[in-house]
């Protein structure tokens, strides 16, 4: 009897240690992006000066106001990768697979390969700690994951500076990312939550969906070689607009007369339904 109890206790103890290492749901396979959310922003790309619905700080607004799209003609900018919170929003396909310890078959990591820019996000599932702050930052960052029921929750740090919207709005290298991967049969929802107190007043939460693809297994390469696009650019010259002098910021207002300029400037309040009241008040006050 004592032996049986001991065996059960040992089994439970083993299970409690081993369980977190085994996937609750298998995410492995090829996944195609579906673009059900924010398609105009994600495929054609966002318009200049459109910060609507983003909880940005004043600092972030000025970063974007000063941003010139000519900057991406610079050779060192041409192959820049979308950082991990943003890359899932792009026209990308994903390949996901599990890495198992060959001796124990415990789950060591889940790999998420993104076709766009050939990026490989490694989600460590073996309990290892994040590196110290002074370690190298990368486009995909350093990720650790755990299963919360059937949801894979991932914490990502050490991300390079990058976009939150492809019109100059940034997240800094201090930003952190929480991700949830949720599989519903052939559909997978990816949730990203970016926190960056210097540039976001509230967490920025986005979702995007993917559909499993059983019939395609392409090579998914993304060769990128930078070239001199603007000949004769002066050494040390960086395209930008001086504060208050970016004439393109008004283009959005002209193309979308129903959206007041103040709303397009963004900020946390433009995310919430209550902002409708303010919009109506603006309308009543004579503003578009």
């Amino acid at each position, binding site marked *: 009897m004592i032996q049986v109890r001991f065996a059960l206790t040992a089994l439970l103890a083993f299970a409690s240690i081993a369980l977190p290492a085994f996937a609750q749901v298998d995410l492995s396979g090829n996944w195609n992006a579906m673009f059900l959310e924010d398609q105009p922003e994600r495929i054609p790309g966002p318009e200049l000066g459109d910060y609507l619905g983003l909880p940005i700080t004043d*600092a*972030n607004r000025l970063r974007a106001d000063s941003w010139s799209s000519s900057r991406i003609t610079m050779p060192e900018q041409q192959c820049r990768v979308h950082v991990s919170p943003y890359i899932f929003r792009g026209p990308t396909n994903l390949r996901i697979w599990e890495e198992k310890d060959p001796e124990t078959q415990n789950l060591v990591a889940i790999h998420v390969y993104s076709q766009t820019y050939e990026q490989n996000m490694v989600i460590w599932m073996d309990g290892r700690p994040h590196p110290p702050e002074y370690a190298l*930052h990368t486009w995909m960052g350093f990720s650790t994951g755990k299963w919360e029921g059937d949801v894979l929750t991932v914490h990502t740090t050490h991300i390079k*500076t990058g976009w939150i919207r492809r019109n100059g709005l940034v997240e800094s290298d201090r930003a952190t990312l929480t991700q949830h991967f949720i599989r519903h049969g052939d559909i997978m929802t990816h949730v990203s939550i970016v926190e960056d107190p210097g540039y976001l007043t509230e967490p920025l939460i986005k979702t995007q969906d993917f559909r499993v693809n059983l019939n395609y297994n392409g090579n998914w390469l993304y060769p990128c070689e930078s070239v001199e696009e603007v000949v004769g650019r002066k050494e040390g010259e*960086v395209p930008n607009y001086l504060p208050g002098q970016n004439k393109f910021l008004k283009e959005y207002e002209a193309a979308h007369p129903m959206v007041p300029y103040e709303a397009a400037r963004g900020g946390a309040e433009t995310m919430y339904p209550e902002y409708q009241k303010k919009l109506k008040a603006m309308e009543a006050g004579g503003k578009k």
Partner: protein
Amino acid sequence: MTILRTALAGVALATAAFAQVDLTAAESHGEQNKDFSKAELHVWPVQGNIYMLVGDGANITLQVGKQGAVVVNTGFAKMSDKVVAAIKKLSERPLQYVINTNSYPDSTDGNAPVKLSGTTITGANVTNDIRDSREGAQILAQENVLTRMSAPTGKKSPTPPDAWPTDTFLGKEKTLFFNGEGIEIIHQPEALTDGDSFVFFRRSDVISAGDIFNTDGYPVIDVEKGGTIEGTVLALTRLVDMSIVEHEEEGGTLVIPGHGHLCDQAEVVEYRDMIAIVRDRVKDAIKRGLTLEQTKAEKLTRDYDPTYGHNGYWTPDMFIEAAYKSLKPGK
């Protein structure tokens, strides 16, 4: 020959000038009064033969190999015991070279104690003629670093002679071949001062950038010592050009900043772009006829302050003032 020349110059300057060490410059960098007894020194492998030593003060670059060790910068003297212990732990042979990327206290304050932990390999008449020629590692730097750390005869020296560079160079660069790789010390004129250098470890493919590049603060441009914002932008552009990415603007050449986390080219581009943008704004303010105080009031760095503006010893206003003074016609 240069060792002998600098050593003799050092003796002359020391006897005539060194009566009292002026720590004003060191204190201006705000970290001299910290409690260093609790400070930790972290050793982080970079790639090839290179490690990054991270503590309070500037990052220290360490190269180790069969011949011994090289350090780029030495941090604050109060951390030197820990720095020397880290070098001895990683290198079976003694430290032979200290390289200074500039004259700032957080890079050079530990020169004397760290140097004394090492040795200089000498031979022939040098060994015989100069009794202490083997004592301590050599300290290499661009000539203006020595000028800034020492003082003419009769003047008070800002640093003790033991901390001064023992071998300096005047040209575009000085090269060494040590521990199986070429090392280039490349002068960057008119950057933070007139004596800044990058140190490029060619085989390891690592560049120690010194304080010209930081991830946690604006560049500490000292206009009185020949620094300019334009020169800083150009130096960072050269750093971008020197580094070669492995894939999609990532990896390849790694860059150790003066302060902050380990980087590759992407962060250098980000930093260079930020300084160039602020430069353009300050130029415009000058063109509009704004005074220095009016320019400061415009808060021209406010979009970058969340990343670079929290450095207590070098505020956004101090950066703007340095930029303004270096760009103002007739500077």
